[in-house]
């Protein structure tokens, strides 16, 4: 027991590998949130008036929400109040005029991404993944733009989309997550600085995986990116996002919004490997990951699939959801969330069935280790018009050690009697007897835990694009180091 505990502790206390800071000249506006700041962000982005007006509406609403004390605290997470005036809302590497090629990107930035294992260099086409990299508040490079343009796919920084494709942005921005949606989405709508924009034209199957890498570098800043993906009729896209941040003693806020729109017969597969800095082993520092992600299956036979592997962040508050409007549309949510040390995760999904014969699948795997607290919170709603709707939910929790917690809050709301619902839930603990059994077969405690955890997550990893599945598995092993009891 003691020796197991020690090994677990040493594994769990492994250093965060992405915790370095890039020494780069940055332009960061002073902390504080005001109408002037919102206008400044908009003007730095040279945005059209509709964007500014939208931001201002969001800002005014945010001020009102704050005055009414509407910051949500229903999540099962505890943290000190956030001082929204102490955050800087815009930070960017200095001198980023229009870049015509990657050669003009600051070498230090490229070095940062190399350290993170992301190649931005187009020569490395072999990987076959187009990458958009967002460094603090701005997008610094998007690869494969030309190759994608040939088939009519638009994949660019959000700020560029606002200028080059304002009609698409105006039509779809806020159509799934309105600026009034919730406290953090409202804040994001006012101050978001960049993110990724994707448009897949009718009938096009996007020829490669699209990927965005988010990196928070500057101290005392927040990151508020916004992603908008539109899959037009009969199109398909697979999109992956990854996130890392330096180790810092103070908490940093990340409040992103992701909106997905799938039209008739379109499919969007959205995968996340979230590895924001989780704080140290005593729970000091780390990212507050308060994110709103929602997809609308607007067309008939459309499909949206969320897959997430969440290992980072001090606190995760995130519910990637699907609104199943189109008849026969499909929503899926596959999640692995790991909390170790003092991490807290409150995550899950909402499946709102509106159309006929809509189907949804939820598979959630929560792993709690150390003093981690892991909560699944999900809602399945069958509206009166959703005749023939089906849902299958499975929530499994795995406890590693005896200091952690797992919690499940499923909410099922059925208003059409033809619906078929299934809900399964299990809670298991990696027992000392399991570890001893594996050790008696020659495996070390770490190997045993990692084998059991990987087995537990296998169904989810299978949903990830291959290279990311390997990455996710490694990440999980790393995040678990020092966690068995």
């Amino acid at each position, binding site marked *: 027991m003691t*020796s197991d505990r020690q090994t677990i502790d040493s594994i769990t206390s492994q250093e965060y590998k992405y915790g370095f800071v890039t020494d780069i000249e940055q332009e960061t506006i002073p902390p504080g949130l005001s109408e002037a700041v919102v206008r400044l962000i908009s003007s730095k982005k040279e945005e059209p008036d509709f964007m500014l007006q939208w931001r201002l509406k969001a800002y005014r609403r945010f001020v009102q929400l704050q005055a009414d004390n509407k910051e949500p605290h229903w999540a099962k997470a505890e943290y000190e109040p956030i001082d929204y005036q102490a955050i800087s809302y815009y930070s960017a590497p200095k001198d980023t005029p229009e870049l015509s090629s990657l050669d003009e990107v600051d070498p230090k930035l490229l070095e940062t991404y190399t350290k993170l294992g992301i190649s931005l260099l187009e020569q490395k086409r072999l990987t076959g993944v187009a990458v958009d990299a967002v460094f603090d508040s701005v997008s610094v490079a998007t690869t494969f733009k030309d190759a994608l343009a040939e088939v009519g796919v638009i994949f660019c920084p959000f700020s560029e989309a606002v200028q080059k494709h304002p009609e698409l942005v105006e039509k779809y921005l806020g159509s799934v997550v309105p600026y009034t949606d919730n406290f953090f989405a409202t804040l994001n709508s006012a101050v978001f600085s960049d993110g990724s924009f994707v448009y897949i034209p009718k009938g096009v199957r996007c020829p490669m995986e699209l990927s965005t890498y988010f990196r928070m570098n500057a101290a005392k800043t927040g990151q508020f990116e916004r992603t908008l993906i539109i899959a037009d009729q009969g199109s398909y896209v697979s999109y992956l996002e990854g996130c890392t941040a330096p180790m810092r003693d103070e908490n940093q806020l990340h409040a992103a919004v992701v909106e997905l729109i799938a039209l008739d017969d379109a499919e969007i597969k959205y995968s996340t490997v979230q590895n924001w800095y989780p704080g140290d082993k005593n729970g000091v520092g780390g990212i507050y990951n308060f994110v709103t992600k929602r997809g609308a299956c607007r067309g008939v036979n459309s499909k949206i699939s969320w897959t997430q592997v969440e290992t980072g962040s001090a606190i995760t508050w995130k519910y990637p959801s699907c609104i199943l409007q189109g008849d026969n549309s499909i929503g899926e949510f596959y999640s692995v969330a790991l909390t170790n040390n003092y991490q807290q995760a409150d995550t899950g999904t909402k499946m709102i069935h509106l159309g006929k014969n809509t189907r949804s699948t939820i598979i959630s795997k929560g792993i709690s280790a150390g003093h981690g607290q892991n909560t699944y919170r999900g809602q399945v709603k069958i509206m009166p018009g959703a005749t023939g709707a089906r849902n299958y939910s499975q929530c499994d929790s795995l406890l590693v050690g005896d200091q952690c917690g797992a919690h499940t809050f499923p909410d099922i709301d059925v208003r059409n009697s033809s619906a078929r619902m299934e809900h399964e839930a299990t809670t298991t603990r990696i027992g000392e*007897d*399991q570890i*001893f059994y594996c050790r*008696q*077969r020659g495996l070390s405690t770490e190997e045993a835990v990692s084998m059991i955890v990987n*087995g537990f997550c296998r169904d989810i990893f299978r949903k990830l694009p291959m290279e990311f599945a390997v990455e996710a598995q490694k990440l999980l092993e790393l995040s678990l180091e020092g966690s068995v009891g």
Partner: protein
Amino acid sequence: MNIRELNNNHSLNQDKNIRMLEIKDLHVSVEGQEILKGINLSVGAGELHALMGPNGSGKSTLAQVLAGRDIYQVTAGEVLFEGRDLLALTPEVRARKGLFLSFQYPVVISGVNNIYLLQAALNARRKERGEEALDAVDFLALVRNRLQAVQMDESFLYRPVNEGFSGGEKKRNEILQMLILEPILAILDETDSGLDIDALKIVAEGINNFRTPQRSFLVITHYQRLLGYVEPDWVHVISEGRIVKTGGPELAHELEERGYGWLQGGQPDVTIKAAIGP
């Protein structure tokens, strides 16, 4: 590694003076209560010893202590495994060096396929022996061969470890692992309990075919049943934490007829040392 250990490594099984397993005056407690009260036992290479006794006599405790379960405290005595201090080794190192325990209650590991555990275990053992990991083709060939020995279906490999297995399937699975890992000392803890007659024969045959002049067995059993198919060299009776009687195969039959009652509360049998001498 000191010179003595090096010598040990080179002279394993050739040196008749080094016993496979030597337990000397072993005292073991759990939560302050003494379970084993001075066990003495010596197992030579190639020997099969049966350890019999009533419930609660300490049979399984001994098996668990030998495998390295740390909920038990060794309060006195020593255990040598091929001349090395066994108690100083972690459970996984004991396993890699060839000590295998067939569990009385094999553990369920959901989500982990049988074949995956087998492969990880075999590679850990091979690494210890300085051998390379088997590639997938060779590994599968080996596993298929061993599956036949225990008459198990290949579908077993792709089921989670022990999940949904019947009692007999679990025990056969333990024997399958033993056949693949090729230990030098196999401790079988009540491997015969819960087996129907067909499964018992399969398990017994697996053990018999696996016996070599180098490989030793410690077979722990409550009944004499298994010993009808597997011939022991020595039979020991354990009662209240002590070995109270040692004899040849005929002792098992005697116990079957007379029960344990006549031996209980007895003193350690003075014939043990003589009986197990070289």
